[in-house]
Each structure stands twice: as C-alpha cells, then as structure tokens.
C-alpha cells in the first residue's frame, strides 16, 4: 500500500469535494471581505475602492446595531431555556415513565418539521383577534394584545418559536449521554439518602457537561444562521424589533441591492462565527476530554 510514498490517488479522490468547497465556502468568504472595501456598482458608476467607508456607515447605522443586539438577546434568551428544557425532557424520557415512546415523539416532532411550516402555524397562533393565544387571553378576561405587532413582545414571540423547534433536537444528545450513565450511580445515591434533585445536580449534571458544551456551540451557530421564521412571520418588523443579523444581510443584499454594505455586514457575522470557532477549538475541546 502506498501509505508513505507519494501517490496521486488521494489528491484525485479529494479534488471534486475540494473544488466545490473552495468555490462555495472559501472563495465567497474571502470575496466577502474583499468586496466590503469597495462600493456597490450602480448603473454607469463602477465599483471603486472606498476603504473603510462601508464600516463607517455600519457604525452609524442604527438598524445594524438593533439587529446585532436583537441577535445577542435572541441567543441569550433561547439557548439557556432550550438547554434546560432539553435536559428535563431527556431525564423524563430516559426514566421509565408512562408512555415515554409517545412523549419522545411529542418532543422531537418539531425538529422534523420545516421551519417555514412551523412559522406558518405559529403565525396563526399569534394572530390578533382570532389566533389561539388571543382567544386564550380573552377567555381569561385579559386585554387584547397584538403579539407580533408590538416591538416589545415580537422578539420574545420569535424566541418561543425557536425554543419549541430546537429543545427536542437537543434532547436526543442528552438522551444519548444519559444512557451512558450507569444505573448503579442512581442506586448508590438512593441508598445514601440523596434526593432526586441532589442526584441530578451532584451526579448527572456534571457528567452531562461535555454534551452541554457541544449543544451550546451548536445552538450558538444556529442562532446566527436560522432566520426562516423571521422572513415568514415578521420580516424583521415592527420597526426592526425582530430583525436578526442574517435577516438584515438578506434585506440589504436582496431588497436594497447594496451588495457592498451587505458584504461588510457579512464580515461581522463571519467574525462572530470565528469567535465561536476559536472558543470551541481552543478552550472547550481541551476541557471536555476528562470524561
């Protein structure tokens, strides 16, 4: 076998995948950075080098800051709740509860549905006057509220949808991890007089730490990547209160057709992902091998 001496075979095997990766991942990432230093060509005026002008524009753009902070709030609001729910679901489905097969189905189903379908269903849920939520609040005698039309509640509503969609997905990773924990540990804890609560915090939760970190990274990436529900439900409104970074890039790039400014915005998104990648490879991957 030609494991050590030079061989053309691995390069031939690698080439098709590499060509496509470079064409649709590496080249566009580099081109984005390059184009962010130029102006958008408009009609007769070609693209010219403008240095940091797009970035100066961005620093003064309240919509950009709104979208960025919305995105951070969105991540901060959805990730801890999804993770807590996912752990709870996994604990329940892992215990021999009544009808746990059905429960697992109930929790996991939202994961399989397209986000756009989910968004349609939830849009109906939140509809003013005759949506289910409105009917519920009416029945309880609470005042009518336009959930998606109010800048104060719209981002919260988007978070609920994301949590509903993702918690069941994260559950299965916890389920896999829980199945690795020996039942003997629970026995011993029970004999020692530990409560269920103590057993969870002192034994299960620490053992689930690598899973939590893995889920955390995935959830972070997803919170910057998934904007389907924004497109369908709010289009970033009202008054950009539900705009996320990628949604704003989409709006600038394909509604305002300002590709250079969109490129500068994409560079910010790339930087966020680079930070996540750095944290993952430098810090977390080193710490999680203790299991």
């Amino acid at each position, binding site marked *: 076998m030609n494991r050590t001496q030079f061989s053309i075979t691995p390069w031939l095997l*690698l080439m098709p995948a590499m060509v496509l990766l470079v064409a649709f991942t590496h*080249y566009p990432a580099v081109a984005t950075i390059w184009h962010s230093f130029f102006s958008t060509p408009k009609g007769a005026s070609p693209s010219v080098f403008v240095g940091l002008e797009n970035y100066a524009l961005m620093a003064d753009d309240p919509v950009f800051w709104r979208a960025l902070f919305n995105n951070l709030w969105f991540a901060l609001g959805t990730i801890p709740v999804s993770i807590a729910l996912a752990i709870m679901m996994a604990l329940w489905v892992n215990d021999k509860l009544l009808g746990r097969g059905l429960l697992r189905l109930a929790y996991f189903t939202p994961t399989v549905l397209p986000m756009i379908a989910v968004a349609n269903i939830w849009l109906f849920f939140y509809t003013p006057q005759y949506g289910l939520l409105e*009917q519920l609040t009416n029945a309880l005698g609470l005042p009518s509220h336009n959930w998606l039309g109010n800048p104060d509640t719209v981002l919260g509503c988007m978070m609920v949808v994301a949590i509903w969609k993702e918690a069941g997905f994260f559950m299965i990773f916890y389920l896999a991890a829980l199945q690795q924990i020996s039942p003997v540990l629970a026995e011993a804890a029970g004999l020692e007089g530990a409560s269920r609560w103590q057993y969870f915090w002192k034994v299960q939760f620490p053992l689930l730490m690598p899973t939590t970190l893995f889920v955390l990274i995935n959830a972070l990436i997803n919170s910057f990547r998934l904007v389907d529900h924004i497109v369908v439900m709010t289009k970033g409104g009202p008054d950009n209160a539900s705009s996320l970074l990628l949604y704003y890039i989409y709006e600038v790039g394909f509604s305002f057709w300002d590709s250079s400014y969109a490129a500068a915005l994409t560079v910010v998104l790339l930087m966020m992902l680079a930070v996540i990648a750095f944290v993952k490879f430098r810090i977390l991957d080193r710490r999680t091998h203790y299991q």
Partner: protein
Amino acid sequence: MIAQATNPFGERNKILETVAAWVLGLLWLLPLIYAIWTAFHPAEFATRFSLTAPLTLQNFVNAWNAAPFPRYFLNTFLLVTMILIAQMVLATMAAYAFSRYRFRGDNIMFMLVLMQLMVMPDILIVENYNTMNLLGLRDTILSIGLPYFASAFGIFLLRQTFKTVPRELDEAATVEGASAMQVLWKVYVPLAKPIYLAFGLVSISTHWNNFLWPLIVTNSVESRPLTVGLQVFSSTDQGVDWSIITSATLMTSAPLLLAFLLFQRQFVQSFMRAGIR
C-alpha cells in the same frame, strides 16, 4: 434486572414527574394539533372548537388547486435526491483519501474541510448569488443544491468511520489484487452502512426544509422547492384564509412527517449518531 424496577427516589416523585412530562408533551404538541384541527374542518370552525364540527378534506383540495404544488413536490424531490447522491459520492471519496492515505498537506486539507462546519454556505448568500449569476445557473434546481454538494459534515463523519476499518481487511484485499476503488467499494462502504443511513436521513430532512438560499436564488415555478412555494402561496395568494394555509403547510411537511413516524427509531438514532462527534 430487579435493580431497575425499583425507583431509588420513591414513587411520589415518579407520579409528579409523569404528570409534568405529559403537560409539557401536550404543550409541545398543541401547535401541531391546532394546525391539524384547522386543516380538517371548514373555515368557520378554524378558531371555534366544537365536537360536532364536520370533518372535511376540502381545504386540502382547495390548497392543492390554488398553487402548482405537484411541480413544487417534484422540484423538492429532485433537489433532495441530487444533493444526497452528490454528497454521498463526494464525501465517500474525500473521506477515503483522508483515512487511508498519508500525503503532504493532509492535515491542512482537512482543516480547510472542517472550516465549512463553522462558515456554512447558508450565510454567504450575497457572494454565492453572484457566483450563480456568473455561471448562468440562477433560478435552476442545480443552483440551489450546488453549494451543498461538498459536505464537511459528511466527510468528517465518514472519515471517522473509515478509520475504524481494520487494516488487516484492507491489506488482505490489496494482496488479492483489488484496486483502491475495489477496496473502497468492497471493504469500506459496506462497513459504514449505518453511518450512510444516518447521514442520509439528516441530509434529506435538512434540504427538504432549507428555505433562505432557495428563496434567494429561485424566482420561477419551475425551480422553486416546496418551502419557497409554500411561502409564496401563503404570503401573496391567500390573504388570511388560514384553513387553506394550514392545509398547505401540513401537506408540504407530510412526507417528512410520515417518514419520521414510520422510521422514528432510525431517525432519532441517526440524528444522535450524526451529532455526536
């Protein structure tokens, strides 16, 4: 296993947990149940709940006739199949190169592949749109799928699996005169079957559900997948006829949902296997 039958933390806890678990389960199913209710009842019962409400399939008929859904189904089917085949072939070849051969720069190449796990084509929409324009591919099914053909995730997953193939099997086949391609096909691929299944299910559901990129790169009935077709349908054609919109919504997710119900165990295991790296 007598040990597992007894609950170390008491029965009262267990009842409490069962109730809580089911409350959450019902809450989780509520949006879906609500959608099913609306889709199978006449419009006047869309938000009125009564046991005597008549069942109907008329909403589905109306939705099916109101937009070119057969074409959208065909487009999505073609798209998902195309991506699946391309990903399987390309990832198998690349993973084989990484796991069986040592070559100059193999680590750098692998790092370049892994970069796609962080920087996915999903966020490079502006540049990839320009590339598709340049290639003259905009508004084709191929243009939706092309950026996803090389999957870092698939390469990574298969490389991990190929590395566990015993070297003796490989050497035995080589000694008997099998070529590199024959060894791949006869030795490596059969041993990685569960991983192919896992990766396949994840790939199909990902690309069946993909929305933003196809929304950007397509603008005609001939190339639109179901997700984009559904969005165009529910945002422009229908106004606020929720019965028809929810029927269309259920219709477009039905094949995936049915497949999931039928192969629940494989789905959950696949997502699990694909996620744990």
